[in-house]
């Protein structure tokens, strides 16, 4: 009897929780359809850029003077450092944004909640994706379109397309199985993050005739345990390091660290390399350079 009562009492909150979740899901689904192209702002542009890759695109399209604010993480080109800062992806400062009186905000799909707040104040918002190479091209072209720089945008996109085409022609000595490490603590082998499926780094590897060993994975940038790495056993490891790191030193360090794992194909053959530069991890207009650097590296691997 006691149990029966307990069961009945437990049900009613469960039902109400389920109902609430259902309503929220319906509301969210309803909001999904509200996406439309933002109107082109009138008068002189005052652009706020909320991601390092969009900042790079804006400056490359000659819109540097129109940019009024950037994030704390926009470090390229150097002129971007002189612009007003409005926080980052996780800590946006809404007041600082409004104070800059922008009439166009360029941001990422991840900023959706923020985008709604800006739109509610009649500020034009352009959300551009930045995961794949196609995303980068699309970002360049749609920013060019809305800011009246279509021709420069087309030229920039074409230069990236030609870098892609020439990378396709270059065939490596072998269809190497590659692992791209985007983050690893210095001298450590715990907390290794790699490029997974749906990332432009995965595409770059395929483009130059390699296979990304983490091309099948649950996350786009999964954390890779040592056992998992041994299981997938890459023949080539390429580590990406930030600007300011000496790639020669970083390569030496990586080779020493990975050699601690016996049976790892890349470590045994010494096919471990480090590339340095922030452009490697910013899916922006410098992606052509990233492709060229990967191609050059692949040409050397024997």
């Amino acid at each position: 009897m006691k149990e029966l009562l307990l069961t009945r009492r437990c049900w009613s909150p469960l039902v109400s929780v389920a109902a609430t979740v259902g309503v929220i899901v319906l509301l969210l689904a309803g909001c999904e359809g509200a996406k439309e192209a933002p109107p082109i702002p009138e008068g002189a542009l005052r652009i706020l850029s909320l991601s390092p890759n969009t900042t790079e695109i804006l400056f490359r399209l000659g819109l540097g003077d129109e940019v009024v604010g950037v994030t704390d993480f926009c470090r390229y080109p150097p002129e971007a450092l002189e612009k007003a800062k409005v926080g980052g992806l996780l800590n946006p400062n809404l007041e600082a944004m409004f104070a800059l009186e922008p009439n166009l905000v360029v941001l990422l799909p991840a900023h959706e909640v923020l985008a709604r707040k800006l739109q509610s104040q009649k500020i034009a918002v352009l959300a551009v994706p930045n995961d794949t190479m196609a995303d980068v091209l699309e970002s360049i072209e749609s920013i060019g379109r809305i800011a009246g720089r279509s021709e420069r945008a087309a030229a920039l996109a074409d230069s990236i397309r030609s870098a892609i085409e020439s990378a396709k022609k270059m065939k490596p000595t072998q269809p190497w199985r590659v692992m791209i490490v985007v983050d690893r603590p210095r001298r450590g082998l715990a907390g290794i993050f790699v490029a997974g499926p749906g990332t432009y780094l995965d595409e770059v590897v395929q483009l130059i005739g390699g296979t990304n060993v983490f091309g099948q994975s649950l996350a786009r940038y999964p954390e890779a345990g040592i056992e998992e790495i041994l299981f997938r056993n890459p023949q080539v490891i390429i580590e990406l390091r930030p600007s300011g790191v000496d790639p020669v030193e970083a390569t030496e360090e990586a080779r020493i660290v990975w050699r601690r794992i016996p049976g790892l194909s890349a470590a045994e053959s010494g096919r471990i390399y480090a590339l340095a530069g922030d452009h490697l991890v910013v899916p922006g207009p410098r992606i052509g350079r990233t492709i060229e650097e990967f191609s050059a590296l692949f040409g050397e691997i024997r």
Partner: protein
Amino acid sequence: MRIRNTGRTLALLLLFFVTVLLVAPFLGREAIRFSDIFGTEGTTRFFIFWTLRVPRLVLGLLAGASLALAGLTFQTLFRNPLATPFTLGVSSGAAFGVAAAVLLGLEGYLLGLEVTPVFALAGAGLVVYILYRLARTGVGLSTLHLLLAGVALSYFFSSLLLFAQYMADFTQTFRMVHWLMGRLETIGYGPALMILPAFIFGVLILAANRRELDLLLTGEEIARSRGVPVDRLRKNLYLVASLLTATTVAACGPIGFVGLVVPHIVRLLLGVTHGRLIVGCVLLGGPFLVACDAIARNVVPETELPVGIVTALLGGPFFLWLLVKRQKGEA
């Protein structure tokens, strides 16, 4: 009735311990055969077994037992069933230490030492020290005041951690959150060796004080009237439990739930005498964590889930089942 059951229950716990010990290292992405573990050094499977999985097993056993013992001690010290190893802010302090290391870009190695655990230990030590000084000088050693001051400190350092996360780069925040989930991944015995001295010391001190702990549980006045130096005992218990917690958190991150629930399960199985409880916590805490980790490593083959996600998912329902079953038995 109870007494006759105790022997059987202890035997079952021992069986669970041995089973987990023998089975866990063979579960994983790469199938390991018996011939592999006696194979030649330098082969991949030999390395996976002896450098990845066995150290991980040892770390899990030590961490689980340490957390269970620390939880047991705090629950008795505060006579509060909700006390956990993290109630007094030790893990918040450790987490803040890790956040500082990440923010300062100090991850990796410095002077041959891995930086993150050192910072975690320093953060945990800072909280323990502040609270100890507070108890000695300001708020006094009253149990309630110690508890309240500890909870306040815990919130203070949690806020510092949130502040650090908010100010950090996206990837840095990601690493801090990952650390908070708690994990047993290790290469070699470094983290296990970090816990071992504290574990041995803790078990010895607690075992030596098992009768005093029983008396403390019945009430401070009763304990005092029986000649227990209550203030000194409380001070020592606080330091021992904090040491157990701090070293474990520094080595594996704040793995939740083990410290809260394992002592309760042991109490349900073995009664409230601390001599048995200490043995039970060691026999159940370690294998429980290792079993959770074995599941965490194998349930999603692509990636290794942090064990902290699994402990409550698995332990929670089991504990509820045991609770209901016992209540029915007593009614």
